[in-house]
């Protein structure tokens, strides 16, 4: 079979799943899914988090054994029990998280990925071979550079090059653009699509971005709750249809209308902020930004350009090296006292890690802002747990937090419900300043809509909102003004009405 394929000019591999089912205990993660990917296709696998996309791919890659179902490679049944067997069958995967070794160079990373290294490596011969290989590729990465010094886009290219170097002809890309700028994403997906169109490779891409599906894929399969719910040629489907297949009948809260001319006297001023990262290297440099009440300022940027450090500095998790924050003209320090005085609230990224204490109860976590003030505390130190519980019960109901009881440790809640509990704590009072970072990362559609609506609500009530997000679509949807952060600086500011995806992308990449 392999020989027959090798003789034909086109070397891409076709793959077919028949009746794939995977059951973990009582959970049916994948239920009778059948998908066909023809040689040379660019096939998109669409679905929300938890829809079964990664389970399916892990069954193909040999990480899981399907409970039932068959896998056919080029029409013949194949048994893939281990990732090594997948590699031998020519199936390679590019993971969402890089699997490159940062301290090794590009050449070292490529050579080591080959299973059959000799005891002593003849670098002269290896590098000549690598250079010849790079010559044949549509895109290149400098061989001598340490991977730690590569930009995210180059790393992603290298991950793909590595699979091609290993002669993998069926590439599975897992959310390949989540760490890239729009321009980098378009470039890489375009190159991969061209290779597929020439019949060199077949591509199966996991994604939840419709734009990438319509722009690059030729066929699509949609999964929801472990079931295959539809698919076909991309040209026959509209974004609307795909989205309905993906979300199903779930009710999604309508985005709150954006009120014009919100009157508010809140003014936030970030003045020449300098913040260092954990290694003592400058992460934020000379950052100036003004946010008015009734306005959402969205900070766009590729992750790792100082956004996390900026948010941590504003929320008191990291010292400001220099500069000052002013609210209504008065200096603000990230202390509990100033948070209360200026009514500053925040929704940090990864709320379970940054905004809660995992093992404390939902009620205690919800009380973090108010446990030491009346009515929850007397004399400033005598706490009243009953009062704490009563307040939490109210908020759990009004914010629809799904929890067995207010006394459950918050770590037992799902991601969306942790975020709702934090929303309940932060947004139930009078909010003047709101700092939000990647609020919807990893959440399902209904939660995402809910959270975005809450943020717009706060803006309409006159809060000054700083939104930091790695999801450019989220920034474009929510913001009144968009600032781009690159290399620790704000490099571009534009009103949302005049914003243009490409210009923002160029600034994100630092090429403008």
């Amino acid at each position, binding site marked *: 079979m392999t020989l027959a394929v090798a003789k034909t000019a086109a070397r891409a591999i076709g793959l077919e799943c028949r009746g794939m089912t995977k059951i973990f205990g009582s959970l049916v993660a994948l239920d009778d899914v059948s998908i066909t990917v023809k040689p040379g296709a660019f096939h998109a696998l669409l679905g929300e988090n938890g829809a079964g996309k990664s389970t399916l791919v892990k069954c193909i890659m040999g990480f899981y054994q399907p409970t039932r179902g068959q896998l056919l490679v080029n029409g013949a049944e194949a048994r893939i029990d281990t990732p090594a067997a997948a590699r031998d069958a020519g199936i390679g995967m590019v993971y969402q998280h890089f699997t490159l*070794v940062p301290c*090794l160079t590009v050449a070292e990373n490529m050579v*080591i990925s080959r299973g059959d290294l*000799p005891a002593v490596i003849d670098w002269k011969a290896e590098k000549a071979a690598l250079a010849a290989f790079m010559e044949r590729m549509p895109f290149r990465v400098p061989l001598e550079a340490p991977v730690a010094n590569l930009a995210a886009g180059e790393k992603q290219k290298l991950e793909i090059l590595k699979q091609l170097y290993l002669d993998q002809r069926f590439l599975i890309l897992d959310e390949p653009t989540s760490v890239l700028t729009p321009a980098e994403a378009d470039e890489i997906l375009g190159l991969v699509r061209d290779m597929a169109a020439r019949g060199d490779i077949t591509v199966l891409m996991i994604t939840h971005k419709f734009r990438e599906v319509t722009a690059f894929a030729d066929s699509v399969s949609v999964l929801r709750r472990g079931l295959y719910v539809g698919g076909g040629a991309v040209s026959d489907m509209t974004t609307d249809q795909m989205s309905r297949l993906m979300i199903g009948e779930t009710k999604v809260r309508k985005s709150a209308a954006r009120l014009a001319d919100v009157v508010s006297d809140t003014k936030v001023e970030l003045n020449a902020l300098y913040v260092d990262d954990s290694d003592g290297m400058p992460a934020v440099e000379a950052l100036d930004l003004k946010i008015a009440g009734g306005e959402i300022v969205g900070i766009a940027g590729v992750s790792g350009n100082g956004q996390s450090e900026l948010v941590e500095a504003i929320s008191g998790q990291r010292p400001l090296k220099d500069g000052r924050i002013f609210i209504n003209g008065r200096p603000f320090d990230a202390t509990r006292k100033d948070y209360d005085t200026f009514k500053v609230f925040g929704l940090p990224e990864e709320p379970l890690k940054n905004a809660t204490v995992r093992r404390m109860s939902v009620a205690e976590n919800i009380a973090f802002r108010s446990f030491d003030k009346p009515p929850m505390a007397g004399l400033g130190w005598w706490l009243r747990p009953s009062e704490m519980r009563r307040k939490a019960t109210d908020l759990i109901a009004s914010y629809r937090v799904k929890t067995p009881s207010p006394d459950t440790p918050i770590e037992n809640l799902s991601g969306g419900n942790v975020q709702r509990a934090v929303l309940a704590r932060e947004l139930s009072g009078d909010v003047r300043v709101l700092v939000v970072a990647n609020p919807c990362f990893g959440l399902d559609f209904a939660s995402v809509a809910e959270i975005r609506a809450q943020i717009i609500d706060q803006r309409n009530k006159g809060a000054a909102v700083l939104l930091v997000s790695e999801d450019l679509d989220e920034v474009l949807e929510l913001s009144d003004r968009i600032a781009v952060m690159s290399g620790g600086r704000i490099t571009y500011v534009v009103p949302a009405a005049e914003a243009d995806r490409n210009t923002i992308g160029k600034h994100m990449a630092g090429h403008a």
Partner: protein
Amino acid sequence: MSPDEILTVLIAMLGGAIRVSTPFMFVALGETITEKSGRINLGLEGNLVLGAMLAYAISYHTGQPWLGVLAAGGAGMFLGLLHGLICSLPRVNDIAVGIAMMSFGIGIAFFFGKPYIQPSAPRLEGLPLGTWSDNPALRQALEINPLFFVGIVVAIFLWWGLANTRTGLIVRMTGDSEASARALGVNPIRVRVLATVAGGFLAGVGGAFLSLSYPGSWNEGLSSGQGLMAVALVIFARWNPLRCIAAALLFGAAGAIGPALQSVGISQGYYFFNAAPYILTLFIMIASARSGAASQAAPGELSIVK
């Protein structure tokens, strides 16, 4: 001080640096291998002391000092294996185990070493490389133990091997990204145990130098924390075997200041100068903790980095 005296001090410091640096070099190279694989073995002080004791005992009984060196390496491998295996258990902290292994190694060395404090064992002979000179101080300084050169060869080999061999690449990969190593079918625990064993061997050999060359006898105050300082030295050398040689020589020279000044009759502050290596360690730790370059060079899987 007259120019002559300054020359004498400098020559004495050169000789001292070469002598004192050897155990530092072996321990630091051993620790480099272990840390490159993603583990810290703080217990190398124990390997050093046990190696010193065993080398002395074997040399005493067999009359073969080189056999003693091998035995010291073997003892080091045993302690390294123990450390490696214990750390491979789930949720075990390598630093805590290292401190326990240090006490363990020193403890058994003292326990079995009591009978060897008095007798005198055959020592490793130095190579007389200073015969061309008629300056007796220089001739003494250039009487260099072969282990010093062995250490340099080992350092060069490690530096080459980490970049050019399959083993070297696998060790570096395991130390920097366990996930990548697993993805390639490498068993990180196996790599780390073997790297700790190899590191333990070198530290044991370093101990043999202490008892068989300089100071050249076995007693309980022999090492006085050199094994621990060598671990600090690895950070200073940024996990580079060649820089380990330079750093070891620097520590050696610092250790030689006191005796060198005494040789020209300056004995004021003798104890203060003897403390120089310890003070140097302290400053190096502070400086490297503040240095961005050092933290970038650190293997990503080290428990202190994560």
